[in-house]
Structures are given as structure tokens and as C-alpha cells.
């Protein structure tokens, strides 16, 4: 295609690497800046809330070793960098002696699955509605209906989740209140399991979609209005092309380009929203893991999980940035 210039790729990759490095450094600094000895404090808090902690000495020893607390700071830092980059986050406090990386590996597929359903849904519904809202030929009733679907826009998804749990799960009993699938089930490729999975997934997905798609609708509408005024739209009309063809091949195709860049920025908010929604639905993903580890002061898990989410976001942003030039033929000009 020739759309990707070397400069552009280098800059994007550089930003990605710096993002990861800055995040690790912040996490390291926070641990060092924390008042007192974080390890003993956490173990003390844990034993206060859970009663007697077995293996207390082993935990403290494991952590001391993991943090390398006897080394000078720069060496600690280098070790820390190495540990995080190799996904070695040490042992978990609540699930000791399980490693944090094992917990994350177990939770991550659930979160990715939820995200892979939600994000395309938000992008598709949002842009479709935005395009229809701005298109001259959209039937009036539809144009009046779309804004009504957007009343939840900008709310925190977690609030939508609370309302949905209360109304649809608790009161109307249409959906299960929590969990990713029915109790006592084993993950398998049976119709029964998959339908249970979908049944449990509808409310979390709906809470995430309903608060977010409106932004895409508004953004798309704005871009459609801008595109509408372009000369090539006038010429497309003058050519007598079928209206629907003009809509998707001329107007939407051009209006959607900035929306794709916006996707990279939206990932941040969406990730945060998903964590909270998972937490209140006790979904088996990263969000619930973070929630329980905050509750149990399991700092190792908090740190490791947060890093993985940051890394994940950065990778997704990088992928979107690298895909973008492929769909916008003009971007090669900017690099030169």
C-alpha cells in the first residue's frame, strides 16, 4: 500500500515503549514512596482482616526476595523492570503461594472476551446511528428515535450496571445477578454452556455499550455534517449515483476515518469502565481480580494486574495507530 512511512511507525512504537516504561517507573516509585514498610504493613492488615495468616513468614520472605529490598535502589529498579517485562509479579497474598501471573492468566481471557464483544458493538452501533442521524434521507421517525436511545450516554458504565442488576436481574429476574456462567457448570463447547455464557454476558455488555455508543454517534454525526459540505459530495450527487452508495462509499467512508483514531483514546475509558462493570457483576475477569485484591490489600496482584491492563491498552492503541494508515490513503503525505 505504501501508506505506512517509517517515521510514523517509529514514532508510534516509541510512544508505545515509553508508555510501558513510564508506567513501570511510576509503579516502582509508588512502592518506594509508600510510607513505612509496605510488606509488613500489608501482612499485618491481612492478618487483622483474615485472622491468622498461615505461612506469614514465608510470605514476607518471598516478598523481600521478590523486591530485592536489600539491594541499592538502581539495582532494585533494574530487577523490577526485568520482572515486570517478563510478567513475573511475584506471589499473590490472598492466593499464596499462587503466582500473580497465574491469576492474571486465568482472568485475562474472560476480560478479553468481554472486550472483544463490547468494543465492536459500540463502534458499530455508534457509527451507524451517527450516520443515520446526519443522513438527509433517513426517515423522520428514525431520526427522532435515535436520540432517545442516547439518554445513558456519558454515564459511568458501573452505574448503568447497578441499575440493570436491580431492574432486570433482582426485580424482574430476567438475567442472573452475577458470574460469567451458571453455577456448577464446566466451561465446554455445549449449547447449554454457551447459552448460559451469553445469558450472563448480556447485562455487563449492555451496561458498557449503552453508556458509550452515544459518543460515537455524536462524533460520527459531526463528521458526517463536515463531510456533507465537501466538494466531492456535491460531485457525487451531480453524478447521479444511488443515494445509498453515496452514503457509504463517499460520506461514511470519509467521515469514519477520524472515528478510528478516536478509538485509540476511547480504549482508556472503556478499559476502566469494563474493570468496574466486571467488579460489580463478579465477572471472572481482570476487574474482579483487581476488586478483590484491593479489598484484601494484595498489593502484588494490584500492581501486576494494573500493569497488564496498561500494557494491554498500549498494545491496542499501537495496533490501531498502525492500522490507521492502511485505511486512510492520505496519511502517507503527512509523513513526508
Amino acid at each position, binding site marked *: 500500500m505504501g501508506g505506512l512511512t517509517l517515521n510514523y511507525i517509529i514514532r508510534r512504537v516509541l*510512544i508505545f515503549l515509553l508508555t510501558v516504561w513510564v508506567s513501570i517507573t511510576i509503579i516502582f516509585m*509508588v512502592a518506594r514512596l509508600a510510607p513505612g514498610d509496605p510488606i509488613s504493613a500489608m501482612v499485618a492488615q491481612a492478618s487483622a482482616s483474615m485472622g491468622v495468616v498461615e505461612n506469614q513468614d514465608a510470605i514476607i520472605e518471598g516478598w523481600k526476595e521478590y523486591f530485592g529490598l536489600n539491594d541499592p535502589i538502581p539495582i532494585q529498579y533494574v530487577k523490577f523492570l526485568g520482572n515486570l517485562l517478563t510478567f513475573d509479579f511475584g506471589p499473590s497474598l490472598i492466593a499464596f503461594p499462587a503466582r500473580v501471573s497465574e491469576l492474571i492468566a486465568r482472568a485475562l481471557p474472560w476480560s478479553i472476551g468481554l472486550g472483544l464483544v463490547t468494543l465492536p458493538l459500540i463502534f458499530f452501533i455508534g457509527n451507524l446511528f451517527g450516520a443515520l442521524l446526519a443522513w438527509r434521507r433517513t426517515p423522520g421517525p428514525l431520526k427522532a428515535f435515535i436520540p432517545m436511545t442516547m439518554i445513558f450516554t456519558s454515564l459511568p458504565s458501573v452505574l448503568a450496571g447497578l441499575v440493570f442488576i*436491580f431492574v432486570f436481574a433482582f426485580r424482574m429476574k430476567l438475567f442472573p*445477578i452475577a458470574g460469567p456462567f451458571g453455577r456448577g457448570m464446566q466451561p465446554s463447547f455445549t449449547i447449554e454452556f454457551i447459552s448460559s455464557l451469553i445469558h450472563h454476558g448480556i447485562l455487563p455488555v449492555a451496561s458498557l455499550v449503552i453508556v458509550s455508543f452515544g459518543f460515537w454517534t455524536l462524533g460520527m454525526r459531526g463528521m458526517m455534517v463536515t463531510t456533507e*459540505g465537501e466538494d466531492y459530495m456535491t460531485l457525487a450527487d451531480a453524478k447521479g449515483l444511488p443515494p445509498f452508495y453515496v452514503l457509504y462509499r463517499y460520506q461514511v467512508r470519509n467521515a469514519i476515518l477520524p472515528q478510528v483514531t478516536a478509538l485509540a*483514546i476511547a480504549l482508556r475509558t472503556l*478499559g476502566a469502565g469494563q474493570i468496574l462493570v466486571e467488579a460489580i457483576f463478579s465477572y471472572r475477569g481482570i476487574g474482579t481480580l483487581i*476488586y478483590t485484591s484491593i479489598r484484601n490489600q494484595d498489593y502484588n496482584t494490584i*500492581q501486576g494486574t494494573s500493569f497488564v491492563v496498561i500494557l494491554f491498552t498500549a498494545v491496542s492503541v499501537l495496533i490501531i495507530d498502525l492500522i490507521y494508515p492502511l485505511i486512510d490513503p492520505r496519511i502517507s503525505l503527512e509523513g513526508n
Partner: protein
Amino acid sequence: MGAATGQTASLAAPRKAGRLNRFDNPWLNIKLVVGVIMVGSILLMGVIGPLLVDVDLAYVGRSPLNLPPFCFENMRGEGGDPTHPLGTDNSGRDMLSLIVIGAPNSLLVGFVAAGFGMLGGIILGFSSGFLGGLADDIIRLSADITITIPSLLVLIVIQSLIPVQSLLVMAVLLSLFAWPQPTRLIRAQVMSMRESGYVKMAQLSGVPTSSIMFREMMPNLLPYLAASFIGNTTGSILAAVGLEILGLGPQRLPTLGRTIQNAIDNSGILRDMWWWWGLPTVILIVIFIGLLLINLGLDEVANPRLRKATRQ
């Protein structure tokens, strides 16, 4: 008006009168006004509320436990009490007092964070645009990185180890993620202004560049900066509420997020204590929709084309 032929005038006249105001002052569009009223009433509640409501009831153990709002019943069949019109929570906190203090608290955290972010953005944006070179590169790169990092996760890491007990500290932490957008806006504007002819003319006539640019830029930039401020306020409140629901942030100060977290922790939904989480949720909905309306209104100020699109 009215000068064209009779036929023309009759064709054009009917829709004219209603539109005059909106065209004359774009800042008076309906969305903006309604949004300001919604957000303003929350702030007003913070000012007037304490005069009418005993705010001390917002703390633990000041009232009977688990009371439903007046005219409702809780699961045990107890009726509401007119002295606690919105009910009480499981530790004897009065919901009305909680909301009267908590709502403005939550809103202010957002405003203060966005304010600091804006301040940083103005300083960095101007530096970036004026100094250029290495300073510009560094500022731009920092903005790009900050925008990529999900703020909630960094704040979780920080606050889970270093507990935050003051709303101001919370706001400052949130503002660390609120500067890139205003920085980018201002930088872009400074750059395009530097190239424009009339700034060069002004330079030739001896007017200091910075003062000219500041004066010429602000009117253009104002709706965008305002929108960015409101956007950051929304984002900061969102993050603050998120942290509070996860159990972080100030634990002793009443905020809406803290109130919701308390409800979740004590199974407010499953015990049908809807007022525990429902009332702060409603207030948050008012805040978020109000802020969104303000933002949409500002969009129309900045982009007149959208106004036309709305009209049809």
C-alpha cells in the same frame, strides 16, 4: 428585510422569527442553558443545603439504621420517618445529608482536577507552541504518553499503597491526567497563529507577539477550552467515582462514589435497599447528563455547522 418581492417574502417569513435569538448569541443555546442549570443546581445544593439540612447526620451512627425513604417500606416492613425523608443507611447515616454534602464534593473534585489540568495545559501549550524545538518535542511526547496510559489503573496503584484522605489530593492526582487535551488545543492554535499573516504584521509594527496572540486567540479558543474543561471534569468525576466504588479514595468524607460503594459492600441491591445506591446514582446521572449537555452546547458554539444540522 421585506424588500424582496411579495412572493419571496411570504416564502421566507414563517420560520424567521424563532431563529433570530439563537443565531444572535450562540452561547444561549438550549443544551448549554439546561446543562448549566442542572450542574448549577447541584452546586447550589451545596451552598443552600447545609442551611436547611442537618449535615452532621451524614456521619456514622447519628440516625436509626436502614430506614427507608418517607412513604416507603423496607424489607422488614418498617415505614419511613419524616425526619429522614430519604432514609438512612446501614450505619445510621442520613441519606439526604449524605447527598447534600456528597454531591457537591464529587462535583468539586471534578472541577478542581479539570482546573489544575487546564492550568497545566495553558502553561505547557504556550511553552510548546512558543519555544518549539526540544521543549515542544518533549511536551508533545509526554502528552501522547499520558493519553495512552489508562488513568484509573495508575491511580489504583498509587492509592492502594498511599491512602488519600483529602479531596484536594484526590483532585491533584486526577489532574495529572487532565492536562494533555488543553495542551494540544493551545499548542495547535499557537502554531497556526504564528504562521498567520496578521501576527507577522503586528510584529512588524512592534506589538509584542505574545500579547497579540493571547488576545486574538482566546475568543476562538474559548469554546474549545471550555469543552475540554468540561470533558476533563466528566473524566475526573468518572475516575473518582470508579476509585471510590473500588474502595479507594477518602474513606471518611461523604462523596457519591463512597456512598455507592457502601451500598454495594452491604449488598444494598440484594437487600432491596434501593435508596442506598439509587439516590446517589440519580444525582450522578443529573451531574453527568448536565455536563454532557454543556459539552454538546459548547460544540454548537464552536461548530456552527452542527447548529444547522440540528435545525433540519
